[in-house]
């Protein structure tokens, strides 16, 4: 499975470490050393206290489904990429991340189901973190 023809992210200096880590199958979160918040999506200042004392933290990559939908429509996406399961996964570290659930029958997905991260390769120097159902 490759990611294309689905869209690729635009990598900026602010988010480059996050995307570079995906090439090594690592999911990174941000951790604020000033107030101890672990947050997602990555950004240079902590959204709770605006400190820039922020370090990258590797996530365990496991969590549970917080919500999910199998959508038949996504603008500009080709038919072969649909339907896609769009989900929020609540990571063990706390943050709820918007993602896709892959390699699953949408009928098997349920709120609370345990999931783990997997990485889909792209034609670029980054992979896309998505999740699959865990036994």
């Amino acid at each position, binding site marked *: 499975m490759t990611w294309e023809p689905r*869209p*690729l992210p*635009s990598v900026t200096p602010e988010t480059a470490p996050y995307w570079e880590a995906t090439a090594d199958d690592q999911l990174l979160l941000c951790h604020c050393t000033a107030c101890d918040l672990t947050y997602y999506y990555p950004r240079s200042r902590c959204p709770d206290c605006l400190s820039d004392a922020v370090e990258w933290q590797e996530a365990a990559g496991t969590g549970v489904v917080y919500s999910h939908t199998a959508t038949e429509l996504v603008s500009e996406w080709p038919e072969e990429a649909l339907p896609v399961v*769009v989900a929020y996964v609540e990571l063990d570290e706390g*943050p*709820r991340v918007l993602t*896709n659930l892959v390699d699953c029958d949408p009928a098997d997905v349920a709120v609370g189901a345990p999931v783990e991260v997997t990485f889909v390769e792209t034609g670029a120097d980054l992979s896309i973190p998505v999740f699959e159902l865990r036994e």
Partner: protein
Amino acid sequence: MTRDQTAYIAGAYEHPTREAPDKSIAQLHADAAAGALADAGLPSGAVDGYFTAGENYQVGRYPPLAMADYLGLDVSYFDSTDDGGSAYVNHVGEAASAVARGKCDVALVTLAGRMRTYEPDPPEHGDRIMQENFEEVYGGETLPLYALAARRHMHEYGTTSEQLAEVRVAASQHAQYNEHAMYREPVTVEEVVESRTVADPLHLLDCCVVSDGAGAFVVVSDEVRRGIDRETVEILGHGVAVDHHDAGRIDLTTTAAERSGPRAFAEAGLDPADVDYASVYDSFTITVLQTLEDLGFCEKGRGGEFVDGGTLQAPDGELPFNTDGGGLCSNHPDRGGMTKVIEAVRQLRGEANPEVQVPDAEVALAHGTGGYLGTRHAGSTALLGRVGR
């Protein structure tokens, strides 16, 4: 002399079109502006305040300037706050504040959109910015982002597809009396839940229409109000709030209405029980259900039971809503907030379609939800009242 700080809506106009392939967006703004000013009985030269959300810059760069130029306005106050569909409800509050401070006396607010017949070029690769890179990559756009909210609400509170369908049923009952509505045929709960699943648990009929359209209203000072013949509507209170991803703590079952509503009610000195008619943003049925809970019309999580059994149906339901058929059946020209304000004005003037006119409507609420329940959105609540109620 102390200025009377109350502001009033003196004119309102909804363009009858739902499909306007041969009209520019600026032209639709102008049609709506002319309609609202004519309704108020005011000449365009009287306008000294102008509010436009800009609708994604489809009128050109710097929307308030482009439109002031096009409309020939000489304004002492303007604003282009754009929070999506709720912007026009926001503009009620912003225009009222500007009038209260003496910045302007006749504020014009316009909307135009061509969601149905105008397809802007898709953004080039590389145009995604900031958090979009963590959303659009996964297909995180409008439809699935609302479906995620619906799923979570069902999980936490036991809300059912049939209960969501009741919202569409009520809107369709109202739409049959609106000659301009896109869909005038009443539908049943069965028809809604048996319509195609587009992003489970949402069905096609849980979604609003896609229309071209335009609308406008005029907010005036007390002094101006006294000089015109048309029945005006008093702006009683207003509140806004933003709900967002919150660093990963997002709660998909609540909306910004939870905070914008109490702010508006406090300013007006009113409670939900005082509301005779409610225009509630209806991009999707779930938007209505969550908003009703968050505005305090029922307990959190009980929205499904609340809307069951005709609660929202005019004229006799406990809380008649969206009597024009709303965004679900009548009109949603890219953004739905404008029609929310206009129908509230119609109800307070006693000018809604007769079959759905709420008897003696004295207090109306208009609520806009702009953005996405699934990531970030604005809530904007306006409370309007019949003058001398």
